């Protein structure tokens, strides 16, 4: 008799692996990446390339020489981190800043915790926040590079829409947001230029059941409700729901960063509370803090609460109350 495999059940496996899931995330990010290339041209292509190359090389080097473990580059999670990092940087970031960001994301935020699955903080956001605090001038330089297509982005090339709030006042800033912003936003991180592209990618992930929609929906709902309450109370000082949803990386963060498997709660209810926390913190930072955006900080802060949420919320067990 030939030798045959013996193993415990189950004997078949779903056509899914860490790599296939990460590949799905990359596919979902493609529309937004393409739009950012169109608008920001070679500058953005360069940032993306530097980010991917440095993230992947770093992870490979760390697993090979420091951890002396089998390489985890093949699972593509480093590529996802790299794309998200690049999407979170201004489109004119110098290449060496990208490399530093990648080093913080991969070496500090991910590998020093033990690699994929072990990190507490979202690597891409950690990298971005590190850069924001270390190089504030570079990270808020919203100069528009030459794009492949040239929309009429003339008026506000110096600051993001959220930055305009301090200059123009809330009421004026609100008027800058319209249906047009759904397709292409102006000024801001490279990846958040097109809300439609981001939402299309998110929808792809939800339909493919790669992620569950609850975290994202919870963030959107919280941001919208809080903004609506404050805006109704005082439209002169506080910007409205649509403005807050479409600016400052809320969509990018809610769709792709807050939903990162490793750094988000596992249960549905935990996810909803996680999203609520993010929405609340981001709105508090925007309305009362000194940073105009706040999405990165909100996600990092809530990342810390994930172990607690995982302990507190479990799904309903069969036959038990």
């Amino acid at each position, binding site marked *: 008799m030939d*030798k*045959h*495999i*013996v193993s415990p059940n189950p004997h078949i496996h779903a056509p899914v692996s860490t790599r296939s899931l990460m590949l799905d995330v990359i596919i979902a990010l493609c529309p937004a990446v393409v739009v950012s290339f169109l608008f920001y041209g070679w500058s953005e292509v360069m940032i993306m390339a530097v980010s991917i190359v440095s993230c992947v090389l770093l992870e490979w080097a760390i697993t090979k020489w420091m951890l002396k473990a089998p390489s985890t580059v093949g699972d593509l999670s480093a590529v996802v981190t790299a794309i998200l990092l690049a999407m979170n940087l201004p489109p004119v970031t110098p290449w060496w800043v990208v490399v530093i960001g990648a080093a913080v994301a991969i070496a500090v935020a991910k590998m020093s915790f033990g690699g994929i699955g072990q990190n507490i903080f979202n690597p891409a956001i950690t990298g971005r926040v590190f850069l924001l605090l270390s190089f504030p001038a570079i990270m808020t330089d919203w100069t528009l590079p030459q794009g492949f297509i040239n929309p009429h982005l003339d008026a506000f090339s110096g600051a993001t829409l959220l930055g305009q709030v301090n200059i123009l006042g809330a009421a004026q800033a609100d008027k800058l947001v319209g249906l047009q912003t759904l397709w292409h936003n102006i000024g801001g991180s490279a990846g958040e230029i097109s809300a439609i592209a981001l939402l299309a990618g998110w929808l792809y992930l939800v339909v493919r059941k790669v992620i569950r929609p609850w975290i994202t929906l919870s963030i959107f709902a919280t941001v919208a409700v809080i903004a609506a309450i404050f805006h109704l109370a005082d439209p002169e000082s506080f910007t409205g729901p649509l403005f807050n949803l479409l600016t400052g990386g809320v969509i990018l963060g809610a769709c792709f960063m807050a939903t990162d498997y490793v750094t988000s709660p596992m249960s549905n209810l935990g996810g909803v509370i996680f999203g609520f926390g993010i929405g609340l913190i981001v709105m508090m930072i925007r309305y009362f803090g000194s940073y105009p955006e706040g999405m990165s900080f909100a996600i990092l802060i809530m990342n810390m609460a994930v172990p607690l949420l995982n302990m507190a919320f479990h799904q309903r067990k069969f036959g038990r109350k």
Partner: protein
Amino acid sequence: MTSTILWTIAILAGLGFLLALVLYLIAERFKVVEDPRIDEVEKVMPGANCGGCGFAGCRAFADSAVKAPNLDGHYCPVGGSEVMKKVADILGFAVEEKAPQVAVLRCNGTCAARPTVNYYDGVKSCKVKAALYSGDTACPFGCLGCGDCVEACQFGALHMDPETGLPVVDEEKCTACGACVKACPKALLELRNKGPRGMREFVACRNTDKGPVAKKACANACIGCGICVKTCTHEAITMENNIAYIDFAKCKLCRECEAMCPTGAIHGVNFPKPLDKAALKERIAKRKEESHE
């Protein structure tokens, strides 16, 4: 400016004093009175927390030993007599001498001796494998080779030999804590007396199948032929369920059984000279003749 600095220093100093006071009061209030001998005993323990003594760790052992009326049931296999003497000194007890022991693998089903008929694709765990089926070879009693014993050993005294597929005990490192004995689902590891200068004889097989079946499953199996039992002049060997067992307390290390075993299931280790089969067989034959006369 100066006053600001002074104020800061003063407030910080005051705060430090106040908090220290609070800490002191809390420490006093919740002080746990413990027998100081527990600490003393713990200090002389090996500190491996291996659980070989049957307690949760060295501290638990010390705690229990201090409270016990005598040292019955308290024996640290890792530290052995040396440590137990120290413990007894601290507590004022007498201690029994115990012969040093070592873990011994009672399977010699090497890859070469046991043809494999299946291969395993589950989690690397003998426990899981044993619960699933009888193993990758025709011998349902032999080593499964997933290394649960290696995992269990806290002293690094076990490693898998890739050539034989069996675990190897490093006698220098083995402390006879018994963790591997508990870990093996096939009960292949046994704590045996180390013997004089490490010399000992044992049957490296647990196959209770009848001779031909066992032989077919593994070339090195004990086939229960009983020759060793007849050979032994010290009544150290017993045969039960087609498997021989050597009582290490009775064995005189004459190596006659080892010489007579047709399958090489009986192992002698740490002897200064290699086994001289011919000489031993001659000796046995001679003795037989004499007894006939």
